[in-house]
């Protein structure tokens, strides 16, 4: 508030000092800024949808016309869900498909027959828009994620992953009312219904809180789906996926100094994880232990190596020099990996997460693909 007041005060002083020319200059700058703002919206389909939704919402509020209501509902849903989808990491990409909603209007409704696989959903009035958004978020997740592995995994595990994917997608909308509606009416009632689901869900939640659900697990499941495409389901496949989740759960709940397996090697999944998170180890032993661990993973012919760096945010508070050194050593490690080994950097994602003690940590996840 004070900042805005200061800006206006500065503009006033500027005009007072330079007169009419200053005023003209400010109008030109404001005009250019407005043009850039609107062009950016127009070029971005999802932002345009959101703004169109706002306009139609106002028209609907004034006129109560059904056409305006329908345009508001459709544009608002597409804009919000597609923008949220872009914010939600899925490895380096986002959820594979964007959402497009099309009304079956009055005339069409009298001759409409759905094609194979086509889905029709009834939406409620604009007054319960949060319910409409949740309905379509669930559909979007079901139809566009976990492709190729849904027939392998148990119903409980599938539900646990879907529930958390929808939760994450709705979280990115940044509207508490929508998320609260979902948590109260969909997420919680479903979780408490079944012990198996509850157990899988608690594991997915822990993995998600460490930032490894959408950045590691879903990436590997997507690759798995591609690898086994067209193959019949076997009990081995189901346990490969379940054990991958157990493997990540152990890493996610690992406490300071505790050992957890960092390689997961099966017939169809061969991944390794390198955690650069113990500040004292990084500061006093340097990068050598990590380089050795990386070589060990290469010797096992691992197909994807994830380097997870976790920095302690409070380190910067009490020892700025140590925090800087910690950061420099991490960068040095990545330089060495890329220079000395035949690897391709698939993606690098910076994020923040909570550690097992609930402390906020800055994190970085880099996925390397070794070339053998």
């Amino acid at each position, binding site marked *: 508030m004070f900042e805005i007041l200061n800006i206006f005060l500065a503009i006033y002083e500027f005009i007072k000092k330079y007169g009419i020319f200053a005023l003209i200059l400010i109008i030109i700058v404001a005009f250019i800024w407005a043009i850039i703002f609107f062009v950016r919206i127009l070029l971005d389909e999802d932002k345009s949808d959101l703004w169109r939704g706002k306009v139609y919402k106002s028209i609907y509020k004034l006129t109560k016309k*059904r056409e305006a*209501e*329908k345009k508001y*509902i*459709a544009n608002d849903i597409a804009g919000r869900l597609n923008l949220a989808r872009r914010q939600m990491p899925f490895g380096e990409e986002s959820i*594979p*498909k*964007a*959402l*497009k*909603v*099309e*009304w*079956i*209007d*009055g005339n069409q*409704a*009298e*001759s*409409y*027959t*759905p*094609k*194979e*696989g*086509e*889905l*029709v*959903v*009834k*939406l*409620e*009035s604009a007054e319960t828009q949060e319910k409409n958004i949740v*309905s*379509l978020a*669930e*559909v*979007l*997740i*079901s*139809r*566009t*994620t*976990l*492709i190729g592995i*849904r*027939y392998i995994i148990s*119903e409980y595990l*599938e*539900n646990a992953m*879907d529930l958390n994917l929808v939760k994450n997608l709705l979280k990115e909308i940044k509207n508490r009312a929508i998320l609260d509606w979902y948590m109260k*009416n*969909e997420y919680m*009632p*479903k979780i408490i219904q079944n012990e198996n689901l509850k157990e899988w869900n608690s594991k997915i939640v822990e993995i998600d809180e460490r930032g490894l659900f959408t950045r590691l697990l879903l990436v590997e499941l997507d690759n798995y789906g591609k690898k086994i495409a067209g193959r019949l389901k076997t009990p081995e496949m189901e346990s490969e996926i379940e054990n991958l989740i157990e493997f990540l759960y152990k890493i996610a709940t690992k406490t300071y100094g505790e050992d957890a397996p960092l390689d997961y090697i099966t017939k169809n999944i061969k991944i390794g994880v390198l955690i650069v998170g113990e500040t004292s180890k990084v500061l006093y032993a340097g990068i050598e232990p990590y380089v050795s661990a990386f070589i060990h993973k290469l010797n096992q012919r691992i197909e994807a190596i994830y380097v997870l760096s976790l920095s302690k945010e409070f380190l910067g508070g009490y020892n700025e020099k140590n925090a800087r050194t910690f950061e420099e050593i991490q960068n040095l490690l990545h330089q060495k990996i890329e220079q000395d080994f035949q690897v391709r950097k698939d993606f690098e994602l910076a994020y923040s997460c909570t550690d097992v003690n609930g402390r906020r940590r800055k994190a970085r996840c880099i996925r390397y693909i070794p070339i053998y």
Partner: protein
Amino acid sequence: MDMKEVIKIVHHNEVGDFLETIIKLEKLKEATCYKCGAKVTTENFKALTRKYGKILFCCDKLECYRSFTEILGK
């Protein structure tokens, strides 16, 4: 350009004609929820899809819709 998942939507006030047409064109006696077996009417209709040539209706019970969204990806 992103790939798009197209979902058809129908307004709650226009469900009557829509449902009537589907039942007539598909030569059905009535629409029933694929999950709970309840008769699907204008009031309790939530969604439908065509799977293996057959129309699957879903009523508006949260439990049924949850289960319905789960079969969509399969």
